[in-house]
């Protein structure tokens, strides 16, 4: 932590000398590398909103295919639903990290991607048309994991699955449940996107502080939490038993997309790449880098004092090392855990190295407080 403190103080003092620290008479924002407005604007306009739009399109396609399946369940419509589900699930990974602002207000992740799916709860919900899906107990009974179970996991064969939506006595209830889940995903996403495109965008950009509740603080907290809990732990650490809390017990059934199985690595890699791209401020459509966590850390001159290496470079190097570990894994992480778990543990260990860099070094350099942990001991 203190490694980066000294350099940061140095640059802050340097800037004070140049600008005179005149409070409201700050230098022209256009030339102030520590001005956060361009970074917030780049995030909102070039990354977050386009990423949500992209995901919304994928969810739209999935909705069409889901409707086709529920109106006429057969092998063709099932295949179409599955493909569109997979495509949407992959692009969900590129927005899941935006759990701040409207995403946080609606806790959209809780309703889109809490896994492993609660099979017994899903069965229970299917039999209760009035079930309240907003309660925490229903998190793992909806969203992509529940759909995964419903279209990939209900029976061993495709024909067996189709039977459950056609001639089985509960077929209409299952169809109704799929419709309900897909509707809910659409309505939640619509709320989040319309908030972003409505008043929240300017709220976000105009909240330029670093204190708790400011946009930058919210983003950094959500970003770090997503990396730590939902990429490192959720996708790799928990299934492989690499977490110290699991005592080495493997949970291959807790991989993401457990029923589809052969996309779990793609989901993990996509989420990891989204983390990297966000760090570098890479435009979702343009692919061009803009003001970002990287450029902000560089403006702070945050670096390892012993080697002089910029913190942003250290973090990017670590991201690259993690990506190399992902490349050694098979597409099916469930089988990977069972057959060669060491490579999962190696990946976890590599991912773990960036947690400290993001959660301690980056937040310390930026003067951001991590707010999502509760360690006060009572």
């Amino acid at each position, binding site marked *: 932590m203190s490694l980066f403190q000294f350099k940061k103080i140095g640059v802050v003092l340097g800037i004070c000398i140049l600008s005179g620290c005149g409070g409201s008479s700050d230098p022209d924002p256009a030339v102030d590398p520590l001005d956060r407005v361009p970074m917030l604007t780049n995030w909102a306009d070039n990354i977050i909103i386009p990423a949500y739009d992209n995901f919304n399109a994928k969810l739209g396609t999935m909705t069409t295919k889901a409707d086709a399946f529920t109106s006429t369940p057969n092998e063709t419509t099932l295949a179409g639903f599955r493909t569109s589900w997979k495509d949407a699930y992959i692009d969900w990974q590129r927005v899941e990290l935006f*759990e701040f602002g409207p995403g946080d207000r609606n806790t959209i992740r809780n309703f889109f991607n809490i896994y492993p799916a609660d099979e017994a709860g899903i069965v229970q919900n299917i039999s209760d048309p009035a079930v309240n899906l907003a309660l925490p107990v229903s998190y793992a009974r909806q969203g992509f994991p529940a759909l995964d179970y419903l279209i990939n996991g209900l029976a061993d064969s495709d024909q067996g699955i189709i039977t459950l939506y056609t001639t089985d006595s509960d077929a209409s209830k299952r169809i109704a449940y799929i419709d309900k889940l897909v509707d809910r995903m659409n309505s939640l996403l619509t709320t989040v996107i319309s908030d972003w495109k409505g008043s929240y965008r300017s709220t976000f950009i105009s909240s330029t502080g670093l204190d708790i509740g400011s946009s930058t603080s919210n983003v950094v907290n959500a970003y770090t*939490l997503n990396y730590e*809990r939902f990429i490192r732990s959720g996708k790799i650490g928990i299934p492989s038993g690499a977490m110290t809390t699991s005592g080495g017990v493997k949970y291959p059934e807790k991989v993401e997309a457990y029923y589809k199985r052969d996309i779990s690595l793609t989901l993990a890699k996509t989420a990891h790449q989204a983390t990297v791209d966000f760090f570098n401020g890479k435009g979702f459509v343009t692919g061009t880098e803009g003001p970002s966590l990287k450029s902000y850390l560089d403006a702070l001159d945050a670096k390892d004092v012993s080697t002089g290496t910029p913190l942003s470079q250290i973090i990017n190097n670590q991201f690259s090392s993690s990506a190399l570990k992902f490349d050694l894994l098979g597409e099916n992480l469930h089988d990977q855990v069972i057959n060669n778990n060491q490579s999962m543990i190696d990946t976890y260990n590599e991912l773990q190295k960036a947690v400290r860099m993001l*959660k301690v070094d980056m937040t310390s350099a930026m003067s951001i*407080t*991590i707010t999502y942990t509760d360690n006060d*001991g009572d």
Partner: protein
Amino acid sequence: MLKMLRKPTFAALAILALAACDDDETAPDLRADIDYSVLGNQTPYSEQFVDEAGATTVDLADGNNRHKMFQALNYYSSSNITANTAISAEQLKKLFSNTGNPFVDISTSTISVTGSSLNSSGVQLKNVTASSLGSGADAVRTKLESDFDDIATASLSVTQVAEKGKAGKLATYLVDDRGIETIQIIQKSLIGALQLDYISNVLLSEGLKADNHSVVSGKNYSALEHNWDEAYGLLTLNPVYLYNTTTSVASTDAARATVEFGAGSYIWEYNKANYAKFYPAFLKGRAAIVNNDKAEIEAQATFIRTQMELAIARAALGYLDKWKAGGAQVKDQAHAIGEGLGFIYSLRFAKIHGGDAAWSDGIINGLVGSEFGFWDLDVTKINAASDAIKAKFSIQ
């Protein structure tokens, strides 16, 4: 120096004093003035305020004794929960009112209590709890005592696993049949009803009108000096509040140099911008009392009161957010909402920001007023509570 300046205007002041029936300006100051610039922000509180003979004029016993009673009351419940043993509501009520010699020795890494000295201290928690409310205090005291009944009932299920409609433990947390972690309700409600109310709404408001021109019989302090010191002593047991403490990115107790309990720890955790100004404010206000500098006394009291209220409001918001936080387990959510509900209860004592009982109860009912309480919570209810608090406290 101040006294020399006054001489030429003595006649004018005397006339004013007669007209205003205000003898403060004519009565001699009790002590020589203190230069604010000599106050030491890392120097123990009691050392900095002395009489002509060099003896301290500070007596923190009353404040510290109540602070320790608060710790002991909380420890009685927490130690039983840890040990999976029953909690007695009667014992909690005795600890609350200091009747029947209820306190025993406690020695842990964070608590050091000598039972006999609290038993014989002559102070209690109950009679100052919500005391700014006058006759309205009874409702608060009765509510806390019903919480004692609630936790005692829940503790009968301490070896069970809690679920919807059933008391028991969620991991290490004991919750009642509505999923409410009552120990948190009690502890966090007392941060408001005891610490915030007595410090802010009594000692640092009405209490500032106390006499400051004579020492209390048999004591080395004036009534006003003692009110200020009692406020400090109820906030912290430390000679320097948050001595040598810096902001930590991880917000953990380990990063805090001093052990603090109750309001003192949450001021640090939830008012990062201002916690370091609390000790200087206590010192300056106390020096201003010595100097009879009313404007300065008022300024420091207002700062302390305002920022303590904001810390508690932000704590409430922080715990509502923790209920929402991605990856939160049921146990985490129950613990977060237990803390949050207690802080929201405490906000009725945030008088500077206009908090009152009806407003606070409205938020609590909106959160957990339904049949199964915690188990019925959803993000819409959490957002409504957060929005109401943010609006009241002008928090972004």
